[in-house]
């Protein structure tokens, strides 16, 4: 086992040794912190804080030198795959390369150092930036206005559903159901529940799209709306979208567009033009926010004109009178706040920079490359794996490893794990649920033809190996910092903090 204490060896670079936790590296009395000299007259906290509020013992935190902290965290980073290291063809997640200039934007002291409650007169730059972003997002989606508050896609979904609810309520006809396709992302049904609606699932037809008959069967006056992703999570464009929109609108429902990933449609087609009333976007997929190991993101929601009065507030707006160019405004029938402040502002700044760098032309090229790359892979691997729906896809393509499983006992998951040994992140496995042994590949527009070819070759190699040496595939990965991880044990014997560890033997 690893020697505890501030041990500075570089296991990740040279081998597969464990990295101790910071708690194990801790030694009482060591420290890294230093603060400004305040120069205030000394006073004992005992005089300032009544005894009933004082804690008996200080919080037990790791005590390490800056040197040991740096070595520990740097070594942790060396045990982590990332876009900057290699391709990440994780379907539905849009792990594309984001330009570094956006990091520079987010680090500008005049943006990063601004307090969110500062008076409007002192934050005109931020207000202008947010208004311009809102306008750009509306241009991209074909909507009338947007709220930038939601902190991620799921938060945007819930915001959109609450807008739907408020709108129906204002119209005096509250409804109880929201329709979602069976291929929908898990956040959709979860958000529908939190929005106070019942989930009604419609199945996909054999082409991977919404089954129109099934849809008609569930549509009635109790349907508040439908949530769709288009292209859907199978990477397919719902060609019948205009008919779907008419059908839903006919029963008085609203159309919600899960725009988590807009890569495929930028400059090609706009949700507003398809008939959608509400759209959320994941700026952390399409608009240049790296995923940060799981976040932060930003999930603005854009709406059609009739929903604008319900948007969360306060909203940054151009002022029509008064000395200031920009101010705050809360819409008349606002559903209220959906964030502690104004949303993930530094993420929003990145997004505007990205949109400006690309412009109308560049965004269109993003869509073209994203779709071209996915279709190239679809075609390239058609002889290797089954394509779930063999038609032109949009920005992602779903394969199925069903045959591998049947013939060799190798599952989609195993294929993904073996790809790790080839230096690629695994595709999304086991999603969407409607495809057996799904392998969902989203190459994104930022990978080169050579990378795509290398990825395809690696997948081919793994599939060939699955036939010849299935055990090597099911035992994968072997070249990674740790081998296959026991997930069942993690859940069975939950150790979710260092303090919950069984005391070490000896």
């Amino acid at each position: 086992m690893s020697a505890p204490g501030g041990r500075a060896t570089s296991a990740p670079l040279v081998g597969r040794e464990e990295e101790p936790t910071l708690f194990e590296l801790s030694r009482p009395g060591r420290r890294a912190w230093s603060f400004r000299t305040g120069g205030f007259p000394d006073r004992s906290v005992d005089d300032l804080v009544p005894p009933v509020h004082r804690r008996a013992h200080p919080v037990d935190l790791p005590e390490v030198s800056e040197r040991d902290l740096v070595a520990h965290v740097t070594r942790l980073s060396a045990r982590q795959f990332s876009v900057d290291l290699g391709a990440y063809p994780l379907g539905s997640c849009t792990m594309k390369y984001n330009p570094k200039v956006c990091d520079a934007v987010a680090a500008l002291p005049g943006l990063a150092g601004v307090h969110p409650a500062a008076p409007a007169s002192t934050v005109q730059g931020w207000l202008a930036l947010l208004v311009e972003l809102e306008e750009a997002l509306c241009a991209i989606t074909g909507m009338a206005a947007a709220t930038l508050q939601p902190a991620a896609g799921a938060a945007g979904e819930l915001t959109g559903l609450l807008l739907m609810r408020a709108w129906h309520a204002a119209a005096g006809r509250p409804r109880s159901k929201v329709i979602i396709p069976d291929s929908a992302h898990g956040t959709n049904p979860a958000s529908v529940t939190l929005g106070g609606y019942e989930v009604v699932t419609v199945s996909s037809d054999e082409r991977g799209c919404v089954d129109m008959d099934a849809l008609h069967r569930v549509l009635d006056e109790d349907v508040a709306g439908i949530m769709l992703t288009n292209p859907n999570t199978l990477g397919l464009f719902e060609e019948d979208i205009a008919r779907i929109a008419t059908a839903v609108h006919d029963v008085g429902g609203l159309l919600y567009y899960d725009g988590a990933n807009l890569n495929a449609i930028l400059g090609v087609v706009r949700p507003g033009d398809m008939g959608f009333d509400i759209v959320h976007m994941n700026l952390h997929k399409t608009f240049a926010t790296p995923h940060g190991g799981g976040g932060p993101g930003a999930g603005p929601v854009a709406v059609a004109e009739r929903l604008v009065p319900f948007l969360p507030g306060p909203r940054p707006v151009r002022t029509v009178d008064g000395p200031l160019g920009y101010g705050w405004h809360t819409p008349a029938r606002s559903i209220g706040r959906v964030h502690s402040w104004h949303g993930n502002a530094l993420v929003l700044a990145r997004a505007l920079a990205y949109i400006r760098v690309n412009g109308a032309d560049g965004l269109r090229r993003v869509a073209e490359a994203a779709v071209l790359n996915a279709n190239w892979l679809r075609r390239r691997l058609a002889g290797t794996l089954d394509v779930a729906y063999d038609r032109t896809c949009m920005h992602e393509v779903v394969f199925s490893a069903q045959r591998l499983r049947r013939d060799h006992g190798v599952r989609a998951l195993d294929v993904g794990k073996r790809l790790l040994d080839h230096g690629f992140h695994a595709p999304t496995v086991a999603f969407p649920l409607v495809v057996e042994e799904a392998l969902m590949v989203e190459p994104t527009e930022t990978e080169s033809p050579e990378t795509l070819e290398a990825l395809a070759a690696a997948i081919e190699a793994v599939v060939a190996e699955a036939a010849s040496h299935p055990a090597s595939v099911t035992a994968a990965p072997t070249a990674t910092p740790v081998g296959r991880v026991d997930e069942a044990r993690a859940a069975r014997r939950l150790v979710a903090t260092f303090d919950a560890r069984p005391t070490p033997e000896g």
Partner: protein
Amino acid sequence: MLDFLGLGTLDDLFETVPDALRLASGLDLPPGRGEPDVLAEMEAFAEANRARSDRMVCFAGAGAYDHELPAVTRSLAGRSEFVTSYTPYQPEVAQGVLQAIFEYQTMVARLAGLPVANASLYDGASALIEAINLGVAASGRPLVWVSQGVHPHWRAAAGTAAAGTGHDLRSVPLVDGVTAWPAPSEAPAPGGEPGVVVVAYPNHLGCLEDLEPARAWCDRTGAVLVVAADPVAAGLLRSGGDWGADVVVGEGQAFGTPLGFGGPYLGLFATATDHLRRLPGRLVGETVDTEGRRAYVTTLRTREQDIRREKATSNVCTNQTLMAVTAAIQLGWLGTSGLVELGQRCAVATHYTRDALLALDGVEPYAEAPVVREFAIRTPVTADVLLERLADDGFLGGVALGEAYPDGERALLIAVTERRTRDEVDRFVAAVAGALR
């Protein structure tokens, strides 16, 4: 590549998009520009913000604080392996993020005085909402008592969410800076027997309140006690867990995340093991790999939306991992002694500032309860006017208490962090005196 696909033009890629829907004339946006031009444009926005912490001395708080952001935290948290990785779905190549979250969870649990913490939520408000949802589910009662001492924005956001969940949120007012819970003798007003009781510590006025009455109500009614605790004050104060909280939530921005005009921030969430299966969001657990080496993985995934769908404990998917990693680094930087020191320095500076301001003509305390990092004063002019005058002198003088509180327009909430020096405070007090003259 088009050839390989048998396509003639790039347009053919979009053959499945009906013609009628296709954008004929492209997006109504300006054409792309070079990165240096765009950076210059963004710098112009930045320049137009007067209230930047490198040019204005910051006394604003109200849930967003100007704490030390050491170079070491910034450079480590900025490592591209953390910044450009996805949610750790493939643990074999994600031990870096997973272990960092495991360490984060441990630290947050210790701060909260509770055994489990999740891998982060969006911000303080979302953590509160999830806590309420958990509490209602656990207690089976949708009535939620929320102290007015809870941040008004968080209460507003909880109110927004309640429109969907149907929870019944009732405000419990502050009197003299602390929550005036109904007396135990009273008919359990307002609204009946609560399923959840929410209180802030310190509260929005900066005041410390006794959490016993809230705990007592929970004991009496079987309600879940949610404490919205300031994690920085944890250096000095009893933890929520110590006061008997079932869930502790908080805003983690203070640990290494810049003010950033309000985001991205970090929602802290810790709870008792009874509530584990109701925990919202991601959770990392320790396990082993095939060779028995220690390894980490996201666990209890069946709570989550991607598996449980409409029955999930929460809809959260993307969270604030990078901020959680940042907080773990910053808390490692602080360590046991640093957190104590931080709390003490804030308290000493805050009291010095408060005493000096209260000595000015016309300045009065908004509340008298004890404070540690923040306090509210009443002034003869409105807070908005005062703030404008102070801004001209180079001070972000605080946050107007505003409509959420009685006579809040004439009240200013002032935070004094460890980054403030005596010289800055003395100049600030002089500027306030000048502005009130």
